[in-house]
């Protein structure tokens, strides 16, 4: 009896010592399972941030004080060295700035000498490419900017390489742009080296533009850089369009056709710049056909820059005529930058 009683008491004693640990272990394991399966841990941790945040703050205090003191105790010599270095850099930079401002002034003066038509003030806007359509009959881009961000029909598109095309349709949030290489597109260009004017037509191929009807006596060579001439007002002047790659006589043997490689990266990039100089467009656009007193028959590409600029005040002084001259210009602007005949 005594033995049995002793053994039971021993059993109960061992049970009494192991029961709490069993309970605690079971509780911990239940918690872990609940955390792992049910994701309750996240909620609990979220609630407990008022405990954990101060703990983290305290724990990171040594590192913070160390960094702060290291900055605070920087040696005087180091600071002097740094100061001298910065002074030198500042001097160099300000010298450069002075030179740049001198160049800018000179540039301004030269532009004024050239005449007002080139002094466009450009409005620039970045737009993302939403969709690309490059096939032999359609070369278009859909941009993720529309009339809500101020895009207007006729704005020119450029990228880092050069001119890409122009906006032809504007929706509320999207707009469509016609690329330089679209078979329906033409852009007035100028040979940068000689100033020779020409029109570059798209061919439906992303790597080629055609410049037909160049006189055989004209000064143009392979390797010549083509830039926008700004005539017609649709494209601002001076942006690279392409490089002449080949010259050959056309079917009549009277003119030369130049082939050019476009400067813009049609097959690369997801962002384009929209630029506009629309206020100037309204001034230069060809007048309404019913007013025959203006040289409307002459294509805009052949109007010298001086007459184009001389025209400006004439249209400006007659505000009553302005709406009538504007409307056709908007509907069928600048013959040179529009569809092929």
């Amino acid at each position: 009896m005594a033995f049995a009683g002793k053994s039971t008491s021993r059993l109960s004693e061992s049970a009494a010592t192991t029961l709490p640990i069993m309970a605690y272990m079971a509780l911990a394991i239940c918690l872990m399972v609940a955390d792992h399966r049910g994701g309750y841990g996240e909620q609990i941790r979220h609630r407990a941030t008022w405990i954990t945040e101060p703990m983290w703050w305290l724990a990171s205090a040594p590192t913070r004080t160390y960094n702060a003191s290291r900055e605070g105790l920087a040696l005087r010599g180091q600071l002097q060295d740094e100061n001298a270095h910065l002074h030198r850099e500042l001097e160099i930079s300000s010298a450069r700035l002075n030179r740049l401002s001198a160049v800018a002034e000179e540039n301004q003066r030269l532009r004024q000498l050239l005449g007002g038509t080139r002094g466009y003030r450009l409005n620039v806007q970045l737009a993302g490419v939403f969709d690309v359509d490059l096939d032999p009959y359609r070369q278009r881009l859909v941009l993720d900017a529309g009339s809500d961000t101020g895009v207007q029909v006729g704005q020119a598109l450029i990228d880092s390489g050069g001119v890409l095309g122009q906006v032809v349709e504007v929706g509320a949030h999207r707009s469509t742009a016609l690329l330089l290489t679209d078979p329906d597109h033409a852009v007035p260009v100028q040979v940068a080296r000689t100033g020779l004017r020409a029109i570059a037509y798209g061919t439906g191929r992303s790597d080629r533009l055609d410049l037909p009807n160049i006189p055989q006596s004209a000064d143009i060579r392979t390797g010549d850089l083509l830039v926008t001439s700004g005539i017609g007002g649709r494209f601002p002047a001076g942006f690279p369009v392409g490089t002449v790659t080949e010259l050959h006589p056309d079917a009549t043997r009277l003119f030369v056709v130049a082939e050019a490689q476009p400067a813009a990266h049609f097959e690369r990039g997801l962002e384009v710049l929209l630029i506009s100089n629309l206020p100037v467009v309204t001034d230069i656009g060809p007048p309404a056909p019913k007013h025959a007193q203006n040289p409307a028959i002459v294509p805009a590409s052949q109007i010298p820059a001086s007459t184009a600029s001389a025209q400006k005040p004439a249209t400006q002084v007659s505000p009553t005529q302005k709406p009538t001259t504007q409307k056709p210009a908007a509907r069928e602007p600048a013959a040179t930058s529009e569809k092929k005949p």
Partner: protein
Amino acid sequence: MNRAPTGWLIYGSLLLGLLFAVLPLPAGVSEARPYLLALLIAYWTMESPLSVGLGTAFVTGLLADLVTASPLGEQALRLVVLAFLVQRFRARLRFFPFWQQALAVGLLLLNDRIIVAFVHLVVGAAWPAWTSWLSPVLGMALWPWMFVLLDLVRLRSRERN
């Protein structure tokens, strides 16, 4: 005569242990940090079993889980197991010489790492880095110093009372 050390000493040291668990360390060293909290729980279970037991170990572990963002209950389980083992062998551990005591604590910490590895295996988390196995060794090396230091502090506070 009240021999139990004051509560602030116990809980203050545990708080320090919690802070040490989240002290920012370089990435490679972080896994090998000694489990100071386990050493503290072992010490207090050994020296003042009336005030520190399984319950304290469990609560401390839960707090550590919250602070270190380990699975909720993991460190609670580890500390409870450790406290239980220390309680079991308390009489023997207390009268071991220092080096033997340190060895025993090292074994307890190794057991702790095995529990961690097991939990990670079950939960499906990544296997702990090999440097984490240095943690028991460091903890073992730390034990005698911590023991002496805490004994000194405890004596001081008792004398002041």
